[in-house]
């Protein structure tokens, strides 16, 4: 009998992940035992507490990890580097905001999730469930599990754990995608597409892992690097084809999750179909986690490659980055749906992220860290705003989200604050100075130029210009274009600002927020006797407003005084133990 040495497990190091996963388990138990009425509150408290706990756990681990350079459990199966902790902190913060958005039931009194996602759309059963006011509170544990996967994703040296984390992250998301309250067929379709393509990508990645294992007789990245540098250490180490193909496939899997072209095709459909709060959560957190994992894997492997292979890898990243930026911006420019547009913008951002990877340097990892935070804040906020802009029918009932661009016309007059926040998020995504997006883009491009990839940076800049175009288009629409139903508005706009008529201005100028105010749904509905389907901005019941406010705050703070955060991220840029 061979001896077995029980490994020592440093639970403290695991704490960031454990907190979330344990809370997820608790969440499931809550589902089982807490009466339906109290479930939502309980879940919310558990979820938010857990995510806050993760941030605390990360903070507690920080000193130790920063001093030692790393902290590993069981031979790096779980590996905390400063960079990992940074990504974990970002993911936790973004997930926290995402959960706030998810939790909001808005002025319409419903959250964005189907009462019973399993019910066939349009059946009596579904109606009964809706009338009974059922709520799908399982989304909270699902989000926690997904977050757990995201926290684990960049925090390992072991490719199989990487794969498991990937699935841990993805599987709950597949389910979450299918839970939209409105447009359920679209939602289910989104889930299906996401699932099929996602599992395809993860299968590719897994095969890549198998090949890497075949090469190095180990799935530990550091060992793979060692074997790459010492070609006699394993039986198959003289077959670099294995590791190249393997690494390629693994990278493909990661690029898929980031949403980089040509593996981006799922993004628009999924982002559009999924319940909007989930989209925000997914877009922000998955990208952060996947970017972290990409840095972890690609940067580490690059250390082991010889000059020639390294150059090839860099070329590959160049191509993908350029392609991604081009696809994201060009396709984004022709979208007519807000969610789709944001989806393409997320693809473009994936491209910008990749720009920072070409140097395999700490500058790059820092830039990526900052970028995902900046992008995540803007994205969560933007999708949160999308959840509040709704359609209404002739009777003033609030329906689903009004995502067509034309419906966003004149939003600034209905809800100036909301529109201002959305504009800010768009500006940040566009990379306008004094927003987080600018510093992020700056970091990314300087990382690229630092690595000698200045043409890439220039292409990135040009792509930014194009991207700016479609962000600005939306801003124009919201701020400068009169709303669709001006015919209806103009009637009471006349008495609301009667004096203005004398100035000879077009009446569309005067219908301001005071008439179609942001918060009062009932008021709005009552004042508009116009019998047409229109757009209405529902009020947040708090959480989403808090999330939006925090995102605004974050975007501005990171744009104006990014110093402290950047300093911290400079320390957190170490991606290898």
């Amino acid at each position, binding site marked *: 009998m061979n001896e077995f040495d029980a490994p020592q497990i440093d639970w403290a190091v695991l704490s960031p992940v454990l907190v979330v996963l344990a809370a997820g388990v608790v969440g499931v138990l809550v589902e089982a035992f807490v009466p339906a009425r109290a479930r939502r509150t309980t879940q919310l408290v558990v979820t938010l507490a857990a995510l806050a706990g993760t941030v605390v756990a990360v903070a507690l681990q920080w000193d130790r990890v920063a001093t030692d350079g790393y902290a590993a459990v069981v031979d790096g199966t779980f590996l905390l580097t400063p960079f990992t902790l940074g990504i974990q902190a970002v993911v936790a913060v973004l997930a926290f905001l995402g959960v706030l958005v998810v939790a909001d039931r808005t002025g319409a009194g419903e959250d964005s999730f189907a009462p019973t996602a399993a019910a066939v759309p349009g059946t009596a059963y579904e109606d009964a469930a809706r009338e009974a006011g059922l709520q799908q509170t399982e989304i909270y544990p699902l989000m926690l599990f997904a977050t757990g996967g995201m926290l684990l994703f960049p925090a390992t040296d072991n490719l199989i754990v990487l794969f498991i984390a990937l699935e841990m992250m993805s*599987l709950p998301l*597949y389910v979450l995608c299918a839970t939209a309250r409105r447009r359920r067929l679209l939602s289910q379709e989104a889930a299906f597409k996401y*699932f099929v393509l996602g599992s*395809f990508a993860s*299968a590719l990645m*897994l095969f890549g892992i198998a090949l890497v294992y*075949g090469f190095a007789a*180990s799935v530990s990245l550091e060992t793979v690097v060692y074997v790459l540098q010492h070609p006699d250490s*394993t039986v198959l180490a003289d077959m670099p084809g294995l590791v190249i193909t393997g690494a390629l496939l693994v990278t493909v899997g990661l690029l898929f999750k980031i949403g980089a072209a040509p593996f981006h095709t799922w993004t628009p459909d999924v982002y559009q179909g999924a319940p909007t709060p989930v989209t925000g959560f997914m877009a922000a957190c998955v990208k952060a986690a996947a970017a972290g994992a990409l840095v972890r894997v690609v940067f580490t492997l690059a250390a082991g490659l010889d000059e020639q292979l390294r150059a090839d890898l860099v070329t590959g990243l160049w191509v993908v980055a350029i392609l991604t930026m081009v696809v994201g911006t060009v396709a984004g420019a022709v979208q007519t749906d807000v969610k789709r547009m944001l989806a393409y913008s997320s693809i473009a951002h994936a491209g910008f992220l990749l720009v920072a990877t070409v140097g395999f340097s700490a500058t790059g990892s820092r830039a990526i860290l900052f970028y995902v935070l900046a992008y995540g804040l803007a994205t969560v906020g933007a999708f949160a705003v999308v959840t509040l802009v709704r359609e209404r029918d002739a009777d003033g009932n609030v329906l689903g989200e009004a995502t067509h661009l034309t419906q966003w016309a004149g939003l600034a007059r209905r809800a100036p604050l909301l529109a201002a926040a959305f504009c800010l998020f768009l500006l940040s995504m566009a990379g306008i100075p004094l927003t987080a997006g600018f510093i992020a883009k700056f970091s990314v491009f300087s990382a690229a130029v630092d690595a000698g990839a200045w043409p890439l940076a220039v292409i990135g800049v040009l792509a930014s210009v194009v991207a700016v175009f479609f962000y600005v288009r939306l801003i124009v629409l919201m701020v400068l274009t009169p709303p669709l139903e001006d015919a209806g508005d103009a009637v009471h706009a006349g008495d609301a600002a009667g004096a203005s008529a004398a100035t000879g201005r077009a009446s569309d100028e005067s219908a301001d927020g005071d008439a179609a105010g942001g918060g009062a749904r009932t008021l709005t509905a009552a004042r508009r006797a116009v019998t047409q389907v229109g757009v209405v901005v529902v009020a947040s019941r708090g959480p989403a407003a808090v999330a939006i406010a925090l995102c605004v705050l974050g975007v501005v703070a990171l744009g104006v005084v990014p110093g402290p955060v950047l300093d911290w991220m400079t320390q957190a840029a170490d991606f290898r133990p």
Partner: protein
Amino acid sequence: MELTHYLYLASILFALGATTVLLRRNAIVVFMGVELMLNATNLALVTFARMHGDVTGQVLAFFVMVVAAAEVVVGLAIIVTIFRARRSASVDDVNLLKS
């Protein structure tokens, strides 16, 4: 028998699975393609484990099976939901899409 033959088999199976995913239109068949890919990977893992004479690969195969199972569960759930929704081609569906 040469162990590399297993690798060829694994690759062929994997390619078959991938082709299935990419070419077939039936949800379940696509799904089976993915499973085939995963199982081909398992074969590769086990073969490599044999070549290297260590058990890591086998353990990995274990994990892959678990993950595959979880994926089956989630995937089946989604597919079944969609299937049921689409079969009941009621007028309400159209309304839902428009709402």
